[in-house]
């Protein structure tokens, strides 16, 4: 098959590639998928449930990474403890943003709140550059430098750790939403705020809590991936773009959806770059979004009535 419009596309014959490369791609996709899922679940709470087009998500991710850098590299705090501290600080910052910027705009249009979030995004990113300069920073980790080897494929210990913690956080979030009183109140609030208020749910607090939890998850993703990648002011932009893709792929407001969406995006990118063209690697997610929304406008997992 050859698409004439896209001259640079090259479909390499699959059989020519050997199995070991394919295995490595699969392993990469699984590890990357965990990362994307983690980025997605924080956003699915805020964008999916609260309907705030949250452009600060990427900056909270960067905030988590900078917290990790400051704690581990500057203050010498324990690596694992730093993750928890970064999450706590992320939650605080999230609550602050919600209380200061969003609480008054709760009934405003989607574009009004979006513009406020864009403003916050510009402020946060440039504050990061102001404090830390634009130079990339790196965070040391306690894991062995040699990778974990599975036959012809291999993966670093650090990324396995990130993957496991990501799955734990996803499971925790799922339980929080579906098995706790707070989760119930959250779901009620965003399905029907007026009825929820009548039933005694304190809407304001639920909004703040939801935004804080989503922010904490974004900070967790940053704190986990900061040591994997490098820490720099613009790091949040790409993370936010991936997170939006994951949330839409999975359907707004669905934690299992975001999880599956994360893995779909990772597989599409990894195999697309491996077997089609690496130039279009970052387009794969967007092409998928367009295709999926045309076929099934609510995303893969959301129920019909959720449609905006």
């Amino acid at each position, binding site marked *: 098959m050859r698409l004439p419009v896209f001259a640079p596309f090259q479909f390499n014959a699959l059989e020519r590639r050997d199995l070991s490369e394919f295995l490595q791609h699969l392993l990469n996709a699984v590890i990357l998928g965990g990362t994307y899922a983690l980025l997605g679940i924080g956003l699915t709470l805020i964008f999916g449930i609260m309907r705030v087009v949250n452009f600060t998500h990427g900056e909270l991710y960067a905030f988590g990474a900078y917290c990790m850098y400051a704690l581990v590299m500057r203050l010498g705090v324990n690596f694992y403890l730093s993750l928890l501290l970064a999450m706590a600080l992320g939650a605080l910052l999230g609550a602050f943003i919600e209380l200061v910027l969003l609480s008054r705009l709760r009934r405003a249009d989607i574009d009004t709140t979006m*513009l406020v979030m864009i*403003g916050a995004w510009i402020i946060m990113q440039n504050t990061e550059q102001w404090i830390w300069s634009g130079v990339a920073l790196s965070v040391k980790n306690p894991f062995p430098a040699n990778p974990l080897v599975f036959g012809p494929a291999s993966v670093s210990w650090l990324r396995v750790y990130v993957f496991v913690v990501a799955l734990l956080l996803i499971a925790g979030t799922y339980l929080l939403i579906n098995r706790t009183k707070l989760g119930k109140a959250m779901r009620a609030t965003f399905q029907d705020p007026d009825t929820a208020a009548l039933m005694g749910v304190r809407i304001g607090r639920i909004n703040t809590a939801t935004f804080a939890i989503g922010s904490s998850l974004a900070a967790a993703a940053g704190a986990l991936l900061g040591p994997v990648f490098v820490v720099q002011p613009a790091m949040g932009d790409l993370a936010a773009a991936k997170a939006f893709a994951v949330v839409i792929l999975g359907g707004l407001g669905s934690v299992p959806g975001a999880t599956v969406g994360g893995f779909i995006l990772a597989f599409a990118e990894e195999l697309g770059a491996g077997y089609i063209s690496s130039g279009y690697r970052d387009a794969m997610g967007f092409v998928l979004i*367009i295709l999926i929304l045309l076929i099934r406008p609510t995303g893969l997992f959301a129920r019909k009535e959720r449609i905006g």
Partner: protein
Amino acid sequence: MRFIPWLLVAALASVPLWMTDYYYLHVLIVTGIFIIAAMSLNLLLGYTGQLSLGHVAFFGIGAYTSALISLGFKVHIAPDTVVGLSPKPVWFAMLCAVFVTGIVGYGIGKLSFRVRGAYFVIVSLSFVSVVQLIALNWVELTQGAMALNSIPPLTLGFGEYTISFLRKPQFFYLMLSAAVLSYIIIARLVNSRAGRAMIALRENESLATSLGIDVTRYLVLATVVSAAIAGLAGALYTHYIRIVDPNIFLFIYTVTMIIMVVTGGKGTLAGPIVGGVVFGVVPEVLRAMKIAPEMQWIVYGVLMIAIVYFLPQGIVPAVRRAFASHRSVFAGSSTLIEKAEEQ
């Protein structure tokens, strides 16, 4: 009130006569080009209520189309089949840009209005990303990141009666004419039957549908007009800056347009102009204040939030309301007056 816009146009037309510093003229030209794009976005965002984060795609497609037709190109559409075009006059290229973006707008409108709200936001964002990646990777046509440069400026006329729009005063008038034309088209459209149908849609889609308004048809109409005007803005940009590369699809350009529309007042004809002037001039004022570059951005962000926070409807409706409450004894029913004025 009717003649005031024309006074404003006349005042603006006098600018190149007394503004001898080309830097300010340049800032006004670039701001003007983005105001045209913002006006077209306002048609979608303000009048149909669809928040498109993909508007810069139309702007960029217009820029690329006009650049490619004025420069000429050659591409392989199949391994042995070459399609090419010799360089065409710039005015023709600009017209083509308007048509091509209009057609793209039609296709996108048909497809993307199957979804609404937050989904539409992301589909429009995805659309830009895909277009940008094609511009980046289809090197044979667009030269990818190596950029199309040496794009010719617009010239009109024959022989010794030729005007070149290379210099800033001439280009300023070109931009101003395009802006006035776009304004008139948009004003005519929103005050027509179709425009009222769009507003009905924005206010209550299910009610509008039950009244027999063909939702998709009006949304597509709005998208086509909006895309074509954005394409015109892109074509102006490309023959002014005279280089185009995939950076034309930068997200910050979409953000700039949205800021202009929302702070000025979406759904008002003057909104994008007022918002555009404010946010076109603010970065240069900040630059003149000689503060740290990061700080300039931070102030910009704070100003943006402050405007939205204190004037959630935008500057124009707020000013209007202030006027209305001064003049009218029915100070309490200012929204009524606002509605009346919009008609």
